[in-house]
């Protein structure tokens, strides 16, 4: 068991326990990560870096309950995500998790206001209440004047701001951001990241950010590298894009051998 973030579990907001993910591949099994343990404290902003294909996005999907781990478990406080029924998991996501992707993934048929209000509308909250809450969030991300514009009428940076508004409108405690600045130019990326940190503080969020941008990663509380199926903490000072951290615990993330991933069948999440 490799404990990267050695934090007292009683203080943990989010915790994974021996998380494994393997895919069938050809005649064998492609193991993306094995016995992965991550503990994140309430209010922390954690960056996860890693090469393309290392499993960063898959890890975020599993943290959100959008994907099933092959083995292991994800805990929110004392809630085991895998124990929730599909309906409970959906309600949990709606209430507790905000998700932002590299591509904004706004619904093109709807206005910025409607997109931002979607998580509340999905709860069947009355439209006027949902739109009022969404309008407040759009004001907060600086797009109050563009509320009636459709997604396609907004710039990339603006679309990402709407995506942040949508992620936070339901008042979640956890924000998962999958390369939120990946498709933006440097200047816009910087302003979007500043917005993210502002929102993180203002909404008292716990945030996990997947990024290729080490400059942005440095500005987080902790930076972890996902490599060979394991998370390794990177020291903030002197971090270089391709540097292998000294405390790296090298392991074969990709193998054709039966790993501990098949030991436990995780309870099915949503």
């Amino acid at each position, binding site marked *: 068991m490799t404990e990267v973030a050695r934090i007292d579990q009683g203080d943990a907001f989010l915790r994974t326990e021996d998380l494994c993910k393997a895919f069938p591949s050809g005649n064998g099994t492609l193991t993306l990560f094995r016995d992965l343990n991550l503990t994140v404290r309430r209010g922390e902003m954690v960056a996860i870096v890693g090469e393309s294909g290392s499993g960063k996005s898959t890890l975020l999907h599993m943290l959100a309950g959008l994907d099933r781990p092959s083995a292991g478990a994800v805990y929110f406080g004392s809630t085991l995500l895998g124990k929730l029924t599909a309906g409970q998991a959906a*309600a949990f996501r709606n209430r507790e*998790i905000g998700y932002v992707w590299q591509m904004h*993934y706004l619904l093109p048929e*709807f206005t910025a206001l409607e997109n931002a209000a979607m998580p509340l509308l999905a709860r069947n909250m009355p*439209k006027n209440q949902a739109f009022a809450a969404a309008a407040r969030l759009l004001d907060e991300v600086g797009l109050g004047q563009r509320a009636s514009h459709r997604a396609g009428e907004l710039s990339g940076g603006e679309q990402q701001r709407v995506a942040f508004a949508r*992620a936070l409108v339901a008042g979640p405690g956890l924000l998962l951001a999958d390369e939120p600045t990946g498709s933006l130019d440097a200047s816009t990326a910087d302003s979007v990241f500043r917005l993210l940190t502002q929102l993180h503080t203002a909404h008292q969020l716990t945030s996990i950010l997947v990024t290729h941008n080490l400059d942005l990663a440095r500005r987080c509380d902790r930076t972890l590298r996902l490599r060979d199926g394991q998370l390794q903490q990177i020291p903030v000072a002197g971090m270089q894009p391709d540097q292998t951290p000294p405390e790296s615990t090298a392991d074969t993330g990709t193998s054709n051998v039966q790993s501990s991933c098949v030991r436990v069948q995780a309870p099915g999440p949503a």
Partner: protein
Amino acid sequence: MRFELFIASRYLRARRRQALVGVITAISVVGVAAGVAALIIALAITNGMRRDLQQRLLGSTAHVELMRTAADGITHWRSLTQRLRSLPHVTAAAPAIYGQGLISRGARSGGALIKGILPAQERTVSSLLNNIREGSAADLAPSTNAGTLPPLVLGSDLAAQVGAEVGSTVLVTSPQGELTPFGLVPKYQRFRVAGIFHSGFYQYDSSFALARLADVQHLFSEPDVVSVISFKIDDLYRAAAVGREIEAAAGPGFMTTNWMEQNQELFRALRLEQVATFIIIGLIVCVAALNILIALTMMVMEKTRDIAVMMSYGVLPSQIRRIFLYQGLLISVIGTAIGLAVGYSAAWVGGHYRFIHLSAQVYSLDYLPFAPRWQDGAIVAAVALLVSLAATLYPSSSSAGILPAEALRYE
């Protein structure tokens, strides 16, 4: 529920990334509308056909007819008619004598069923005398115009066939001839065409001739007997039961038939035609439902990423399913509403203006009747919605089965 309808209605209105989906959606709406409109119109026609045929038939024929089982004629018909007229449910009764004859005028002739009647009583059981198009039926009253040729009222098609007009003299030949020293010779009698009726029911207009009861008795060398006593009753659909009561009251040796028995093959054929029409035209709705299935399946494919994103912020699979279910139903409801409006409008216009003409010789009616019924609309709408609902089941359930991580992994 509101959320699903909100998304579904917007998806339906929005311009699409894939134009083909929009085209197929539009075709689905038009298809459902066309199917529903066609069904409403077709059912209005078959219903109108049945209604008009029934009306004309019942106008021209009695509800119940009493006759001798041995076909030997009813001798005490005056007292019997009087007695049976007072039975429960009987509203009118009239005696008549029937005989087959040949009506000719010059070289032209036609077979006819010649009915001898008492006009005052006949009017109470049949409307043939009310449909006189030319001339008058007044001369058919008993013992008028003694010394002149007896009057005859012909059906319009029969009159046209023999080339007779009001005032023409026609020769009626009875097959029941007279025995003479030269053997059996047919009996001839000249009649004067007093009127021409047009019931609109080809069977009557082409083969019926009405004459005075006594003249027909004389023509067929019959004593003072009648063939049938015809009855009108207060409830058309109790004809069989009332017929049995009349039979019982008339005593042994009598039998009755009623309008349903006499025309059951016609009405059975009309009913079959209606069912067949419903099934055949209903296939249009099935084709439209197939379009709904294709449109929704393509839309689910187009929206896979959006569905995954919606699931990420807590939209339930059951909500996703309902979004596409409602979308299919919206297509169906819009199509059905348009179809009902078009169908009922067309049926009303067709029924009001009677602009489609038919050959009376083929269809018994000389125009295409429309009789739209609201019950048909309710059934058609229910069928259209159910078929469309069935078409949405696969795409909507496949939408709910999308795995968000899989859908987003390759984006």
